């Protein structure tokens, strides 16, 4: 399954290595104060450093195709996301970005092609399985659990909660174990709330939050699942400039802590300014990819996406 990426992806490869060797806690991160308690003890270097593929390129999409009836939403998408990068996925409306996202995360089943995550084929797995492997997404329109408090929203997210088993949550004695784990979890959630500066909203119903706050909540929630790669579907849509700045700061900070991001976004400038690597989709396939400077000057991109005008 892991044959060479297509010519297009190969073209982008050598240029996007700035943070490839799984940046632990060094460089980048514009104003990253590394005392953030959010970053869970993660071990990005589980495998030996020399093996290039799964470690440096956690997410790989090969020849992805998705048809809805007679419509081909994604024709042939191939790209890869390198560890520790902010990778942007852009393209005009209907380019197939969201469908690609949904195929990667198991919401849709791809018609053809493979998705490889950390060296394993995850094509067609159920979305909760994909999430548990460490590939977690957020939604274009924030999907908070409205009638649950903000803190409850966060407490839900972490995996491996013992109290999620029915008998453990009810029976005496074993429940103490659950309570113990919950107390630890509560601390982590409060820290996350503080990191995202929404701790004053902890006991508010999530449905009462403003659009921007919901986006923060969703990012915080996704983060608490301890993912390796985060897929953000238009995280800045409907967010005011000052909050957008804050969200970006958080993302850079987290990236510096070793998280990897794939971001779908409409805002060309935002992607160009913040991502090391940009994938441009058009009419269901990858038009080009590479560092922002290259993509910005690409004739095809200008033609297809910007209507011939930068």
């Amino acid at each position, binding site marked *: 399954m892991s044959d060479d990426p297509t010519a297009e992806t190969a073209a982008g490869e050598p240029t996007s290595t700035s943070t490839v060797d799984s940046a632990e806690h060094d460089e980048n991160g514009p104003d990253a104060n590394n005392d953030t308690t959010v970053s869970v003890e993660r071990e990005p270097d589980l495998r030996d450093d020399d093996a290039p593929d799964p470690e440096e390129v956690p997410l790989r999409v090969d020849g992805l195709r998705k048809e809805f009836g007679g419509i081909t939403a994604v024709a042939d998408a191939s790209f890869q996301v390198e560890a520790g990068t902010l990778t942007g996925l852009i393209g005009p409306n209907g380019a197939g970005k969201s469908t690609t996202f949904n195929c990667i995360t198991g*919401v849709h089943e791809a018609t053809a092609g493979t998705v490889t995550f950390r060296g394993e084929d995850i094509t067609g797995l159920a979305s909760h399985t994909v999430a548990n492997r460490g590939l977690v997404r957020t939604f274009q329109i924030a999907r908070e659990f409205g009638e649950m*408090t903000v803190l409850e929203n966060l407490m*839900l997210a972490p995996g491996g909660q013992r109290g999620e088993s029915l008998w453990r949550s009810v029976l005496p004695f074993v429940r103490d174990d*659950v309570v113990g784990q919950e107390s630890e979890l509560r601390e982590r959630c409060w820290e996350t709330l503080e990191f995202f500066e929404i701790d004053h909203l902890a006991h508010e119903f999530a449905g009462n939050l403003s659009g921007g706050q919901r986006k923060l909540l969703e990012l915080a929630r996704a983060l608490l699942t301890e993912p390796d790669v985060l897929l953000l579907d238009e995280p800045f849509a409907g967010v005011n400039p000052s909050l957008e700045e804050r969200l970006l700061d958080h993302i850079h900070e987290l990236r510096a802590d070793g998280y990897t991001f794939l971001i779908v976004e409409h805002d060309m400038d935002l992607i160009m300014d913040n991502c090391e690597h940009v994938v441009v989709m058009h009419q269901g396939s990858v038009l080009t990819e590479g560092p922002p400077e290259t993509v910005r000057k690409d004739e095809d991109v200008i033609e297809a996406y910007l209507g011939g005008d930068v």
Partner: protein
Amino acid sequence: MSTADSPLAALWERDAVKIGVLLAGIYLAYVLVGVVLDYGVRGQLNSIATLTFYVALFALLSLALNLHWGYTGMFNIGVVGFMAVGIYVMAVVSKAPATEAAAGSVGGLGLPLWVGVLAGTVAAGLLGLLVALPALRLRADYLAIVTVAMSEMVRFTFLSGTFQRFEVGGLVIGFGGGSGLLLDFGSPVEQLFDALFLGGVYDGLVGLTGTVIENNPQPVTNGLLYGALLLGAVGLYYVVLGRLGNSPFGRVLKAIREDEDAANALGKDTKAFKTKAFVLGCALMGLGGILWYMTSGAITPNTYRPRLTFFIWIALIIGGAGSNTGSVMGGALFAALLFQGPRFLQSVVNNLVDVEAPSTFGQALAPIAGAGDLAPLGFYVIDSVRQLQLIVMGLVLIFLMHRRPEGLLGHRKEPAASVELERRPDRETPYADGGETDE
């Protein structure tokens, strides 16, 4: 999160107090009416026993339904089917074996009562699993269609001649078809006391009742004790479901109710959670069915019509879906005011005046036109209370949906966690500004 400013209000914040006050109020009202009408001790005790019976059962069943609808958002309108399976399986397991097959009698396996109760509960759970496997892929209204169809299938199965009686290993068993089953296993209360080696206590209690009632105190005692047993069951359901809700398990259920896809995207296997919650709720409904009908002497399939399901739904909606405390209060209110209330009122009026109800609506209206005499209409209304009851329930439901869809205690902040979610007191504050957000 007690924002109460007086100790009394603080007390009211506690859920047990809410339930206690409501129950006390209901009982007081019933007793007062009984006193005014000079019911006598026997009448009073019987009326209390009946009231307790229905209060407890509606509380039990709305608690079980709350697990489905209030927590998980699963629209189950086949409650009565699971109740029927519970009591029927229990009956078949615990009935005495048929002695003479030729006489057409239908027997059971003759196992002890507790085995029957367990078997009935498990059977209802298994039926739940059977329904859940294909149906939980469906959302909201489609699940509703499947469950209500299932409950009717259950009723017709018990009604069918095919399963009326058949022989298994020399025993004649069956569901009795349209003529139903006789529940010939004696008083569960007596058996429970005997099983716990408390036969002496039981006799003592009967004797105690005998001091206030001279003739035949045993049925009255049984009724009261069974009521107490049911209240105990409510307590058990309440604790178990409360623990279930206030745990990570309950949190996932709530998340499924709010947005199943998002819960999935966070790595929760929502189908597994839904199946577990559905099966457990169905088993609890089965047990509810058993407790409801095991003392009724006989069961027939046509008791288990969808109407009963909707009674339980109304109870849950009154109390407020999503809250266990609300479910209990809703069950109690429904039983006291809407279910038992009108019948109680009817017997009160019958006791008070000599009701001479006209036989048709026309005859009831005619005197108004003639002499402006409202009494015949009043009598007619009292006489048709059981029919009118349904209209009143419908009106209450419409009113609630319109004015207060969240019920008494719905939409209340009841964080699903096994610990208090307050911030730890000794925390350091790395972000002193507390974080101003936009707007």
